[in-house]
Protein backbone atom coordinates (compact mmCIF):
# COMPACT_ATOMS: atom_id res chain seq x y z
CA UNK A 1 0.00 0.00 0.00
CA UNK A 2 2.81 2.34 0.80
CA UNK A 3 4.53 1.52 -2.45
CA UNK A 4 1.47 2.59 -4.36
CA UNK A 5 1.00 6.01 -2.85
CA UNK A 6 4.63 6.89 -2.29
CA UNK A 7 6.12 9.07 -5.01
CA UNK A 8 8.80 7.40 -7.17
CA UNK A 9 11.66 9.38 -5.65
CA UNK A 10 10.51 10.65 -2.28
CA UNK A 11 13.71 12.50 -1.44
CA UNK A 12 13.83 14.54 -4.60
CA UNK A 13 10.29 15.32 -5.68
CA UNK A 14 7.74 15.68 -2.94
CA UNK A 15 4.60 15.56 -5.08
CA UNK A 16 1.12 16.20 -3.82
CA UNK A 17 -0.47 12.78 -3.56
CA UNK A 18 -4.03 12.14 -4.82
CA UNK A 19 -6.71 13.52 -2.51
CA UNK A 20 -8.11 10.21 -1.22
CA UNK A 21 -4.69 9.20 0.13
CA UNK A 22 -3.95 12.54 1.73
CA UNK A 23 -4.66 11.56 5.31
CA UNK A 24 -2.44 8.45 5.76
CA UNK A 25 0.32 10.05 3.74
CA UNK A 26 0.39 13.11 5.90
CA UNK A 27 0.52 11.00 9.04
CA UNK A 28 3.34 8.96 7.57
CA UNK A 29 5.29 12.01 6.45
CA UNK A 30 4.89 13.53 9.91
CA UNK A 31 6.31 10.39 11.42
CA UNK A 32 9.12 10.45 8.86
CA UNK A 33 9.90 14.06 9.69
CA UNK A 34 10.12 13.14 13.36
CA UNK A 35 12.49 10.28 12.62
CA UNK A 36 14.54 12.53 10.33
CA UNK A 37 14.94 15.27 12.92
CA UNK A 38 15.69 12.69 15.60
CA UNK A 39 18.47 11.12 13.52
CA UNK A 40 19.92 14.54 12.64
CA UNK A 41 19.81 15.71 16.24
CA UNK A 42 23.24 14.47 17.45
CA UNK A 43 24.96 16.09 14.46
CA UNK A 44 22.99 19.28 14.96
CA UNK A 45 23.84 19.51 18.67
CA UNK A 46 27.56 18.79 18.21
CA UNK A 47 27.94 21.20 15.29
CA UNK A 48 26.15 24.00 17.08
CA UNK A 49 28.11 23.47 20.29
CA UNK A 50 31.55 23.00 18.75
CA UNK A 51 31.46 24.98 15.49
CA UNK A 52 28.57 27.43 15.30
CA UNK A 53 28.67 28.73 18.85
CA UNK A 54 32.48 29.24 18.87
CA UNK A 55 32.07 31.07 15.57
CA UNK A 56 29.45 33.33 17.10
CA UNK A 57 31.66 33.93 20.16
CA UNK A 58 34.55 34.74 17.86
CA UNK A 59 32.54 37.45 16.15
CA UNK A 60 31.48 38.88 19.52
CA UNK A 61 35.05 38.70 20.83
CA UNK A 62 36.35 40.59 17.83
CA UNK A 63 34.31 43.63 18.93
CA UNK A 64 35.77 43.53 22.44
CA UNK A 65 39.21 43.89 23.91
CA UNK A 66 40.08 40.73 25.77
CA UNK A 67 43.45 40.42 27.46
CA UNK A 68 44.94 38.04 30.02
CA UNK A 69 43.20 39.87 32.89
CA UNK A 70 39.72 39.15 31.55
CA UNK A 71 40.73 35.60 30.64
CA UNK A 72 41.60 34.78 34.25
CA UNK A 73 38.96 36.83 36.05
CA UNK A 74 36.18 35.78 33.67
CA UNK A 75 34.87 39.34 33.57
CA UNK A 76 33.24 40.63 30.39
CA UNK A 77 35.94 42.35 28.38
CA UNK A 78 35.38 46.02 27.54
CA UNK A 79 33.68 46.70 24.24
CA UNK A 80 35.96 48.10 21.58
CA UNK A 81 33.68 48.58 18.62
CA UNK A 82 35.54 48.30 15.34
CA UNK A 83 38.91 49.09 16.97
CA UNK A 84 40.38 45.64 16.38
CA UNK A 85 39.29 45.75 12.73
CA UNK A 86 40.72 49.22 12.19
CA UNK A 87 43.94 48.06 13.81
CA UNK A 88 44.21 45.08 11.45
CA UNK A 89 43.08 46.82 8.28
CA UNK A 90 45.47 49.75 8.73
CA UNK A 91 48.38 47.48 9.58
CA UNK A 92 50.87 46.94 6.75
CA UNK A 93 52.10 43.74 8.39
CA UNK A 94 48.60 42.28 8.28
CA UNK A 95 48.20 43.02 4.57
CA UNK A 96 51.61 41.50 3.94
CA UNK A 97 50.43 38.31 5.60
CA UNK A 98 47.21 38.36 3.54
CA UNK A 99 49.14 38.75 0.29
CA UNK A 100 51.59 36.02 1.22
CA UNK A 101 48.84 33.58 2.19
CA UNK A 102 46.89 34.29 -1.00
CA UNK A 103 49.95 33.91 -3.24
CA UNK A 104 50.93 30.68 -1.55
CA UNK A 105 47.38 29.33 -1.94
CA UNK A 106 47.20 30.14 -5.66
CA UNK A 107 50.61 28.63 -6.43
CA UNK A 108 50.28 25.52 -4.29
CA UNK A 109 46.72 24.71 -5.37
CA UNK A 110 47.46 25.13 -9.09
CA UNK A 111 50.57 22.99 -8.85
CA UNK A 112 48.92 20.20 -6.88
CA UNK A 113 45.73 20.11 -8.96
CA UNK A 114 47.71 20.01 -12.22
CA UNK A 115 50.07 17.33 -10.91
CA UNK A 116 47.21 15.35 -9.37
CA UNK A 117 45.25 15.44 -12.63
CA UNK A 118 48.34 14.46 -14.62
CA UNK A 119 49.08 11.51 -12.36
CA UNK A 120 45.43 10.42 -12.39
CA UNK A 121 45.44 10.50 -16.22
CA UNK A 122 48.73 8.59 -16.40
CA UNK A 123 47.42 5.98 -14.01
CA UNK A 124 44.65 5.12 -16.47
CA UNK A 125 47.28 4.07 -19.00
CA UNK A 126 49.55 1.82 -16.96
CA UNK A 127 49.36 -1.82 -16.00
CA UNK A 128 46.99 -2.56 -13.12
CA UNK A 129 49.84 -3.85 -10.93
CA UNK A 130 51.74 -0.57 -11.35
CA UNK A 131 48.52 1.24 -10.59
CA UNK A 132 47.99 -0.61 -7.33
CA UNK A 133 51.61 0.00 -6.35
CA UNK A 134 51.13 3.72 -7.00
CA UNK A 135 47.93 3.75 -4.99
CA UNK A 136 49.62 2.13 -2.01
CA UNK A 137 52.54 4.59 -2.16
CA UNK A 138 50.10 7.48 -2.29
CA UNK A 139 47.95 6.09 0.51
CA UNK A 140 50.96 6.26 2.80
CA UNK A 141 51.92 9.80 1.90
CA UNK A 142 48.31 10.87 2.29
CA UNK A 143 48.06 9.09 5.64
CA UNK A 144 51.23 10.71 6.94
CA UNK A 145 50.45 13.27 9.63
CA UNK A 146 51.22 16.78 8.33
CA UNK A 147 53.46 17.27 11.30
CA UNK A 148 55.46 14.13 10.53
CA UNK A 149 55.84 15.13 6.90
CA UNK A 150 56.99 18.58 7.98
CA UNK A 151 59.51 17.09 10.40
CA UNK A 152 60.88 14.82 7.68
CA UNK A 153 61.28 17.80 5.36
CA UNK A 154 62.95 19.80 8.09
CA UNK A 155 65.50 17.03 8.36
CA UNK A 156 65.91 16.63 4.61
CA UNK A 157 66.72 20.34 4.27
CA UNK A 158 68.84 20.62 7.41
CA UNK A 159 71.79 22.92 6.69
CA UNK A 160 74.47 20.67 8.21
CA UNK A 161 73.19 17.13 7.99
CA UNK A 162 70.36 17.33 5.45
CA UNK A 163 70.14 14.96 2.52
CA UNK A 164 69.35 17.75 0.07
CA UNK A 165 72.60 19.62 0.73
CA UNK A 166 74.49 16.31 0.69
CA UNK A 167 73.15 15.43 -2.77
CA UNK A 168 73.70 18.94 -4.17
CA UNK A 169 77.28 18.96 -2.86
CA UNK A 170 77.91 15.54 -4.39
CA UNK A 171 76.67 16.99 -7.69
CA UNK A 172 79.46 19.55 -7.44
CA UNK A 173 77.45 22.53 -6.20
CA UNK A 174 78.51 24.58 -3.23
CA UNK A 175 75.67 23.81 -0.86
CA UNK A 176 77.66 22.27 2.03
CA UNK A 177 76.16 24.31 4.88
CA UNK A 178 73.49 26.11 2.89
CA UNK A 179 70.55 27.21 5.00
CA UNK A 180 67.27 26.97 3.11
CA UNK A 181 65.32 29.40 5.25
CA UNK A 182 67.52 32.49 5.14
CA UNK A 183 66.19 33.53 1.75
CA UNK A 184 62.37 33.58 2.02
CA UNK A 185 61.95 32.56 -1.64
CA UNK A 186 63.91 29.38 -1.01
CA UNK A 187 62.14 28.76 2.27
CA UNK A 188 58.72 29.18 0.68
CA UNK A 189 59.79 26.86 -2.13
CA UNK A 190 60.52 24.16 0.45
CA UNK A 191 57.14 24.76 2.14
CA UNK A 192 55.32 24.71 -1.21
CA UNK A 193 57.05 21.49 -2.29
CA UNK A 194 56.07 19.92 1.03
CA UNK A 195 52.43 20.99 0.74
CA UNK A 196 52.15 19.95 -2.93
CA UNK A 197 53.88 16.63 -2.25
CA UNK A 198 51.51 15.90 0.62
CA UNK A 199 48.45 17.20 -1.27
CA UNK A 200 48.84 15.28 -4.52
CA UNK A 201 47.73 11.85 -3.20
CA UNK A 202 44.26 13.03 -2.16
CA UNK A 203 43.79 14.78 -5.52
CA UNK A 204 45.19 11.96 -7.63
CA UNK A 205 43.18 9.27 -5.82
CA UNK A 206 39.89 11.18 -6.03
CA UNK A 207 40.44 12.25 -9.63
CA UNK A 208 41.43 8.78 -10.79
CA UNK A 209 38.26 7.48 -9.13
CA UNK A 210 36.41 10.16 -11.09
CA UNK A 211 38.10 9.13 -14.33
CA UNK A 212 36.53 5.69 -14.07
CA UNK A 213 33.24 7.50 -14.79
CA UNK A 214 34.47 8.49 -18.25
CA UNK A 215 33.10 5.84 -20.65
CA UNK A 216 35.90 4.12 -22.56
CA UNK A 217 33.64 3.73 -25.62
CA UNK A 218 33.31 7.48 -25.91
CA UNK A 219 37.08 8.01 -25.92
CA UNK A 220 37.56 5.17 -28.40
CA UNK A 221 34.89 6.56 -30.69
CA UNK A 222 36.58 9.97 -30.56
CA UNK A 223 39.95 8.44 -31.42
CA UNK A 224 38.44 6.54 -34.34
CA UNK A 225 36.93 9.78 -35.57
CA UNK A 226 40.41 11.30 -35.56
CA UNK A 227 40.40 13.32 -32.37
CA UNK A 228 43.84 14.01 -30.95
CA UNK A 229 44.45 12.95 -27.33
CA UNK A 230 44.42 16.64 -26.40
CA UNK A 231 40.99 17.16 -28.01
CA UNK A 232 39.66 14.04 -26.31
CA UNK A 233 40.92 15.33 -22.97
CA UNK A 234 39.49 18.82 -23.43
CA UNK A 235 36.14 17.91 -24.92
CA UNK A 236 35.30 14.60 -23.27
CA UNK A 237 37.31 13.85 -20.14
CA UNK A 238 37.46 17.29 -18.54
CA UNK A 239 33.76 18.13 -18.91
CA UNK A 240 32.82 14.82 -17.26
CA UNK A 241 35.39 15.41 -14.54
CA UNK A 242 34.39 19.03 -13.96
CA UNK A 243 32.09 18.60 -10.92
CA UNK A 244 34.70 16.53 -9.10
CA UNK A 245 37.45 18.98 -10.10
CA UNK A 246 35.39 21.83 -8.67
CA UNK A 247 34.97 20.00 -5.37
CA UNK A 248 38.60 18.97 -4.89
CA UNK A 249 39.97 22.34 -6.02
CA UNK A 250 37.63 24.23 -3.69
CA UNK A 251 38.59 21.98 -0.79
CA UNK A 252 42.30 22.39 -1.60
CA UNK A 253 41.95 26.17 -1.60
CA UNK A 254 40.19 26.12 1.78
CA UNK A 255 42.80 23.76 3.25
CA UNK A 256 45.88 25.51 1.87
CA UNK A 257 44.54 28.93 2.79
CA UNK A 258 44.56 27.72 6.39
CA UNK A 259 48.22 26.64 6.22
CA UNK A 260 49.49 26.27 9.76
CA UNK A 261 51.28 23.05 10.64
CA UNK A 262 53.86 23.08 7.85
CA UNK A 263 55.35 26.53 8.27
CA UNK A 264 54.90 26.24 12.03
CA UNK A 265 56.93 23.02 12.23
CA UNK A 266 59.54 23.93 9.62
CA UNK A 267 60.28 27.10 11.58
CA UNK A 268 60.32 25.31 14.93
CA UNK A 269 57.15 26.85 16.33
CA UNK A 270 58.50 30.39 15.95
CA UNK A 271 57.86 31.44 12.35
CA UNK A 272 59.72 34.63 11.44
CA UNK A 273 57.49 37.48 10.15
CA UNK A 274 58.22 36.47 6.58
CA UNK A 275 56.99 32.90 7.22
CA UNK A 276 53.71 33.95 8.85
CA UNK A 277 50.43 32.97 7.24
CA UNK A 278 47.00 34.16 8.36
CA UNK A 279 46.56 31.06 10.51
CA UNK A 280 49.88 31.35 12.35
CA UNK A 281 49.51 35.15 12.56
CA UNK A 282 46.08 34.92 14.16
CA UNK A 283 47.31 32.17 16.51
CA UNK A 284 50.45 34.09 17.51
CA UNK A 285 48.45 37.26 18.18
CA UNK A 286 45.81 35.45 20.24
CA UNK A 287 47.85 32.94 22.23
CA UNK A 288 51.42 34.20 21.96
CA UNK A 289 50.67 37.83 22.78
CA UNK A 290 47.34 37.31 24.58
CA UNK A 291 45.61 39.66 22.15
CA UNK A 292 42.59 37.39 21.96
CA UNK A 293 40.30 39.98 20.42
CA UNK A 294 42.81 41.03 17.78
CA UNK A 295 43.35 37.37 16.86
CA UNK A 296 39.57 36.95 16.50
CA UNK A 297 39.24 40.04 14.31
CA UNK A 298 41.96 38.65 12.02
CA UNK A 299 40.12 35.33 11.89
CA UNK A 300 36.82 37.03 10.98
CA UNK A 301 38.48 39.09 8.25
CA UNK A 302 40.13 35.93 6.91
CA UNK A 303 36.82 34.08 6.67
CA UNK A 304 35.19 37.07 4.94
CA UNK A 305 38.07 37.40 2.47
CA UNK A 306 37.97 33.73 1.62
CA UNK A 307 34.19 33.60 1.32
CA UNK A 308 34.29 36.69 -0.87
CA UNK A 309 36.59 35.02 -3.34
CA UNK A 310 35.28 31.49 -3.07
CA UNK A 311 31.55 31.88 -2.48
CA UNK A 312 30.70 31.00 -6.07
CA UNK A 313 32.72 27.80 -6.00
CA UNK A 314 31.59 26.82 -2.53
CA UNK A 315 27.96 27.19 -3.60
CA UNK A 316 28.65 25.14 -6.68
CA UNK A 317 30.31 22.48 -4.56
CA UNK A 318 27.26 22.19 -2.32
CA UNK A 319 24.95 22.12 -5.36
CA UNK A 320 26.93 19.27 -6.87
CA UNK A 321 26.68 17.32 -3.65
CA UNK A 322 22.95 17.96 -3.65
CA UNK A 323 22.12 16.82 -7.17
CA UNK A 324 24.35 13.79 -7.33
Amino acid at each position, binding site marked *: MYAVDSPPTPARSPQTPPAQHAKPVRRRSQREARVAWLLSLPTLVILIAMLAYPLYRMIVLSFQNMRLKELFSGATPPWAGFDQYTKALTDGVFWGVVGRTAAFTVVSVSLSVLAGLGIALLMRRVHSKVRIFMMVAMMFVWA*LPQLVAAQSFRWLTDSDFGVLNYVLTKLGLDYATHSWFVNPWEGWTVITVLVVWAGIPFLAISLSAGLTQVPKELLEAATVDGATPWQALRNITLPILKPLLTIVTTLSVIWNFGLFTQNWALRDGHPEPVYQTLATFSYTQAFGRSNYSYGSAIAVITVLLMLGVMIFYIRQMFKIGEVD
Partner: protein
Amino acid sequence: MSNLTATAPSETVVTPKAEKTHRELRAFNGLAHLALIFWALVTAGPLLWVVLASFKSNTEIFLGEPFALPSTFSLETYLSAWDQAHIGQYFLNSVLVVVISTAGTMLFGSMAAYVLARYSFFGNRFLYYLFVSGLAFPTFMALGPLFHILKNMGLLNSYLGLILVYIAYSLPFTVFFLAAFFKTLPHEIDEAATVDGASHTRKFFQIMMPMAKSGLVSITIFNIVGQWNQYLLPLVIMQGQGAEEKWVLTQGIANISTQAGYHAEWSTLFAALTLSILPMIVVYAIFQRQIQAGLTAGAVK
Protein backbone atom coordinates in the same frame (compact mmCIF):
# COMPACT_ATOMS: atom_id res chain seq x y z
CA MET B 1 44.64 -7.57 -41.04
CA SER B 2 45.17 -8.85 -44.57
CA ASN B 3 41.65 -10.19 -44.52
CA LEU B 4 40.42 -6.77 -43.73
CA THR B 5 42.31 -5.10 -46.53
CA ALA B 6 41.06 -7.72 -48.96
CA THR B 7 37.42 -7.24 -48.14
CA ALA B 8 37.44 -3.51 -47.63
CA PRO B 9 39.90 -1.69 -49.87
CA SER B 10 39.19 1.64 -48.29
CA GLU B 11 40.78 0.38 -45.08
CA THR B 12 44.20 0.11 -46.70
CA VAL B 13 44.63 3.83 -46.45
CA VAL B 14 43.75 3.84 -42.80
CA THR B 15 45.78 0.84 -41.63
CA PRO B 16 49.30 2.32 -41.71
CA LYS B 17 48.10 5.37 -39.87
CA ALA B 18 46.39 3.23 -37.25
CA GLU B 19 49.56 1.20 -36.85
CA LYS B 20 51.57 4.35 -36.43
CA THR B 21 49.27 5.73 -33.75
CA HIS B 22 49.35 2.33 -32.12
CA ARG B 23 53.15 2.43 -32.01
CA GLU B 24 53.05 5.98 -30.69
CA LEU B 25 50.60 4.92 -28.03
CA ARG B 26 52.90 2.10 -26.94
CA ALA B 27 55.84 4.47 -26.70
CA PHE B 28 53.66 6.87 -24.76
CA ASN B 29 52.61 4.11 -22.38
CA GLY B 30 56.26 3.26 -21.82
CA LEU B 31 56.94 6.90 -20.96
CA ALA B 32 53.92 6.93 -18.68
CA HIS B 33 55.33 3.96 -16.78
CA LEU B 34 58.71 5.65 -16.45
CA ALA B 35 57.17 8.89 -15.25
CA LEU B 36 55.04 7.13 -12.69
CA ILE B 37 57.89 5.02 -11.36
CA PHE B 38 60.00 8.15 -11.02
CA TRP B 39 57.16 9.84 -9.21
CA ALA B 40 56.67 6.83 -6.93
CA LEU B 41 60.33 7.14 -5.92
CA VAL B 42 59.93 10.85 -5.21
CA THR B 43 56.80 10.10 -3.21
CA ALA B 44 58.11 7.20 -1.20
CA GLY B 45 61.71 8.46 -0.92
CA PRO B 46 61.36 10.72 2.12
CA LEU B 47 59.31 8.04 3.86
CA LEU B 48 61.90 5.31 3.30
CA TRP B 49 64.56 7.67 4.58
CA VAL B 50 62.77 8.22 7.83
CA VAL B 51 62.35 4.47 8.33
CA LEU B 52 66.03 3.88 7.51
CA ALA B 53 67.20 6.64 9.84
CA SER B 54 65.05 5.31 12.67
CA PHE B 55 67.35 2.28 12.93
CA LYS B 56 70.51 4.35 13.04
CA SER B 57 72.23 5.59 16.15
CA ASN B 58 72.71 9.31 16.66
CA THR B 59 76.36 9.08 15.62
CA GLU B 60 75.46 7.33 12.42
CA ILE B 61 72.93 10.02 11.54
CA PHE B 62 75.55 12.73 11.92
CA LEU B 63 78.21 10.88 9.90
CA GLY B 64 77.03 12.77 6.84
CA GLU B 65 76.35 9.65 4.80
CA PRO B 66 72.60 9.73 4.46
CA PHE B 67 72.46 6.85 1.99
CA ALA B 68 74.42 4.40 4.16
CA LEU B 69 72.56 1.48 5.69
CA PRO B 70 72.54 1.36 9.49
CA SER B 71 75.28 -0.87 10.93
CA THR B 72 72.78 -3.02 12.81
CA PHE B 73 69.02 -3.22 12.67
CA SER B 74 68.46 -2.95 16.40
CA LEU B 75 65.21 -1.83 17.94
CA GLU B 76 66.98 0.21 20.59
CA THR B 77 65.85 3.57 19.27
CA TYR B 78 62.27 2.32 19.26
CA LEU B 79 62.47 1.15 22.86
CA SER B 80 63.95 4.47 23.86
CA ALA B 81 61.23 6.37 22.02
CA TRP B 82 58.49 4.16 23.47
CA ASP B 83 59.65 4.45 27.09
CA GLN B 84 61.85 7.46 27.65
CA ALA B 85 60.11 9.84 25.28
CA HIS B 86 56.70 8.45 26.41
CA ILE B 87 55.77 7.84 22.78
CA GLY B 88 54.12 4.57 23.88
CA GLN B 89 51.73 6.45 26.14
CA TYR B 90 50.97 9.11 23.51
CA PHE B 91 50.48 6.43 20.86
CA LEU B 92 47.84 4.67 22.97
CA ASN B 93 46.19 8.01 23.81
CA SER B 94 45.92 8.76 20.08
CA VAL B 95 44.47 5.33 19.32
CA LEU B 96 41.87 5.73 22.06
CA VAL B 97 40.79 9.18 20.90
CA VAL B 98 40.71 8.35 17.19
CA VAL B 99 38.80 5.07 17.64
CA ILE B 100 36.05 6.70 19.68
CA SER B 101 35.80 9.87 17.63
CA THR B 102 35.81 8.10 14.26
CA ALA B 103 33.10 5.73 15.51
CA GLY B 104 31.07 8.71 16.72
CA THR B 105 31.59 10.62 13.48
CA MET B 106 30.48 7.66 11.39
CA LEU B 107 27.42 6.91 13.52
CA PHE B 108 26.11 10.48 13.73
CA GLY B 109 27.25 11.43 10.24
CA SER B 110 25.67 8.46 8.49
CA MET B 111 22.39 8.89 10.37
CA ALA B 112 22.15 12.55 9.42
CA ALA B 113 23.29 11.98 5.84
CA TYR B 114 20.79 9.16 5.43
CA VAL B 115 17.74 11.16 6.40
CA LEU B 116 18.92 14.24 4.51
CA ALA B 117 19.40 12.19 1.35
CA ARG B 118 16.36 9.91 1.52
CA TYR B 119 13.58 11.69 3.42
CA SER B 120 11.75 14.79 2.37
CA PHE B 121 10.72 16.67 5.46
CA PHE B 122 10.33 20.24 6.62
CA GLY B 123 13.76 21.74 7.28
CA ASN B 124 15.72 19.27 5.16
CA ARG B 125 17.49 21.90 3.04
CA PHE B 126 18.09 24.07 6.08
CA LEU B 127 19.81 21.23 7.95
CA TYR B 128 21.84 20.20 4.91
CA TYR B 129 23.27 23.65 4.35
CA LEU B 130 23.81 24.17 8.06
CA PHE B 131 25.78 20.93 8.26
CA VAL B 132 27.93 21.30 5.16
CA SER B 133 28.64 25.01 5.65
CA GLY B 134 31.19 23.87 8.24
CA LEU B 135 33.28 22.79 5.23
CA ALA B 136 33.80 26.36 4.15
CA PHE B 137 35.57 27.41 7.34
CA PRO B 138 39.27 26.78 7.86
CA THR B 139 39.93 24.82 11.04
CA PHE B 140 41.92 27.45 12.86
CA MET B 141 39.24 30.12 12.66
CA ALA B 142 37.28 29.46 15.81
CA LEU B 143 40.16 28.16 17.91
CA GLY B 144 40.29 30.99 20.42
CA PRO B 145 36.60 30.94 21.34
CA LEU B 146 36.61 27.13 21.22
CA PHE B 147 39.31 27.25 23.87
CA HIS B 148 37.19 29.47 26.12
CA ILE B 149 34.02 27.47 25.62
CA LEU B 150 35.74 24.20 26.46
CA LYS B 151 37.30 25.90 29.46
CA ASN B 152 33.91 27.04 30.72
CA MET B 153 32.42 23.60 30.18
CA GLY B 154 35.32 22.04 32.06
CA LEU B 155 36.23 20.04 28.95
CA LEU B 156 39.65 21.60 28.48
CA ASN B 157 42.44 19.06 28.75
CA SER B 158 39.98 16.15 28.66
CA TYR B 159 39.57 13.39 26.12
CA LEU B 160 35.82 13.99 26.00
CA GLY B 161 36.42 17.55 24.87
CA LEU B 162 38.97 16.51 22.27
CA ILE B 163 36.72 13.74 20.95
CA LEU B 164 33.70 16.05 20.65
CA VAL B 165 35.80 18.61 18.79
CA TYR B 166 37.22 15.96 16.44
CA ILE B 167 33.69 14.75 15.70
CA ALA B 168 32.48 18.29 15.08
CA TYR B 169 35.33 19.05 12.68
CA SER B 170 34.85 15.78 10.78
CA LEU B 171 31.06 15.87 10.47
CA PRO B 172 30.62 18.46 7.67
CA PHE B 173 32.67 16.54 5.11
CA THR B 174 31.26 13.20 6.27
CA VAL B 175 27.66 14.39 5.87
CA PHE B 176 28.45 16.05 2.53
CA PHE B 177 30.10 12.92 1.12
CA LEU B 178 27.63 10.37 2.51
CA ALA B 179 24.51 12.36 1.57
CA ALA B 180 25.72 12.43 -2.03
CA PHE B 181 26.46 8.72 -1.77
CA PHE B 182 23.10 7.71 -0.26
CA LYS B 183 21.31 9.59 -3.04
CA THR B 184 22.88 7.41 -5.73
CA LEU B 185 21.57 4.19 -4.14
CA PRO B 186 18.46 2.65 -5.72
CA HIS B 187 15.12 3.39 -4.09
CA GLU B 188 13.37 0.15 -5.06
CA ILE B 189 14.91 -1.97 -2.34
CA ASP B 190 14.06 0.17 0.64
CA GLU B 191 10.59 0.79 -0.76
CA ALA B 192 10.13 -2.97 -0.91
CA ALA B 193 11.34 -3.18 2.68
CA THR B 194 8.83 -0.53 3.71
CA VAL B 195 6.05 -2.54 2.08
CA ASP B 196 7.19 -5.59 4.02
CA GLY B 197 6.89 -3.56 7.19
CA ALA B 198 10.54 -2.97 8.06
CA SER B 199 11.15 -0.33 10.72
CA HIS B 200 13.31 2.74 10.05
CA THR B 201 16.08 1.36 12.23
CA ARG B 202 16.04 -1.96 10.43
CA LYS B 203 16.00 -0.34 6.99
CA PHE B 204 18.96 1.80 7.97
CA PHE B 205 21.16 -0.90 9.49
CA GLN B 206 20.22 -3.92 7.39
CA ILE B 207 19.58 -2.41 3.98
CA MET B 208 21.18 1.00 3.56
CA MET B 209 24.41 0.39 5.48
CA PRO B 210 25.37 -2.78 3.53
CA MET B 211 24.52 -1.10 0.22
CA ALA B 212 26.62 1.94 1.09
CA LYS B 213 29.55 -0.15 2.29
CA SER B 214 32.14 1.15 -0.18
CA GLY B 215 31.26 4.78 0.55
CA LEU B 216 31.29 4.15 4.28
CA VAL B 217 34.71 2.48 4.08
CA SER B 218 36.21 5.37 2.09
CA ILE B 219 34.93 8.05 4.43
CA THR B 220 35.92 6.02 7.52
CA ILE B 221 39.50 5.83 6.27
CA PHE B 222 39.38 9.53 5.44
CA ASN B 223 38.28 10.33 8.98
CA ILE B 224 40.79 8.00 10.68
CA VAL B 225 43.59 9.60 8.68
CA GLY B 226 42.36 13.13 9.30
CA GLN B 227 41.92 12.69 13.03
CA TRP B 228 45.15 10.77 13.52
CA ASN B 229 46.91 13.69 11.81
CA GLN B 230 45.48 16.46 13.96
CA TYR B 231 48.06 18.64 15.62
CA LEU B 232 46.58 22.11 15.95
CA LEU B 233 43.41 21.03 17.79
CA PRO B 234 45.14 18.95 20.48
CA LEU B 235 47.76 21.69 20.79
CA VAL B 236 45.02 24.10 21.83
CA ILE B 237 42.81 21.71 23.80
CA MET B 238 45.25 19.46 25.62
CA GLN B 239 47.06 22.05 27.68
CA GLY B 240 47.11 22.91 31.33
CA GLN B 241 48.02 20.99 34.45
CA GLY B 242 48.99 17.38 33.91
CA ALA B 243 48.36 17.70 30.18
CA GLU B 244 51.64 16.01 29.29
CA GLU B 245 50.30 12.62 30.27
CA LYS B 246 47.24 13.04 28.07
CA TRP B 247 49.02 14.30 24.96
CA VAL B 248 48.37 12.62 21.64
CA LEU B 249 51.11 11.28 19.39
CA THR B 250 51.62 14.37 17.25
CA GLN B 251 52.20 16.47 20.38
CA GLY B 252 54.74 13.94 21.63
CA ILE B 253 56.59 14.06 18.32
CA ALA B 254 56.63 17.85 18.29
CA ASN B 255 57.95 17.76 21.83
CA ILE B 256 60.87 15.47 20.94
CA SER B 257 61.82 17.64 18.00
CA THR B 258 61.73 20.94 19.91
CA GLN B 259 63.83 19.36 22.64
CA ALA B 260 66.14 17.66 20.16
CA GLY B 261 67.74 20.57 18.37
CA TYR B 262 71.20 19.39 17.50
CA HIS B 263 72.03 17.88 20.86
CA ALA B 264 69.75 15.09 21.70
CA GLU B 265 67.95 12.20 20.18
CA TRP B 266 67.29 12.60 16.47
CA SER B 267 67.19 8.83 16.21
CA THR B 268 64.38 8.80 18.76
CA LEU B 269 62.50 11.31 16.66
CA PHE B 270 62.76 9.13 13.56
CA ALA B 271 61.63 6.07 15.50
CA ALA B 272 58.63 8.07 16.73
CA LEU B 273 57.88 9.26 13.20
CA THR B 274 57.96 5.67 11.93
CA LEU B 275 55.67 4.55 14.76
CA SER B 276 53.15 7.18 13.71
CA ILE B 277 52.84 5.57 10.27
CA LEU B 278 52.16 2.09 11.71
CA PRO B 279 48.41 2.47 12.32
CA MET B 280 47.93 3.41 8.67
CA ILE B 281 49.53 0.11 7.68
CA VAL B 282 47.09 -1.65 10.02
CA VAL B 283 44.13 0.26 8.58
CA TYR B 284 45.30 -0.58 5.09
CA ALA B 285 45.69 -4.27 5.98
CA ILE B 286 42.17 -4.39 7.43
CA PHE B 287 40.46 -2.64 4.56
CA GLN B 288 42.79 -3.96 1.86
CA ARG B 289 40.07 -5.91 0.03
CA GLN B 290 37.63 -2.99 -0.10
CA ILE B 291 40.31 -0.51 -1.08
CA GLN B 292 41.63 -2.67 -3.90
CA ALA B 293 38.11 -3.50 -5.05
CA GLY B 294 37.38 0.20 -5.18
CA LEU B 295 40.60 0.93 -6.99
CA THR B 296 40.29 -1.77 -9.63
CA ALA B 297 36.54 -1.45 -10.16
CA GLY B 298 36.86 1.04 -12.97
CA ALA B 299 40.02 -0.49 -14.35
CA VAL B 300 38.54 -3.78 -15.55
CA LYS B 301 38.21 -3.58 -19.29
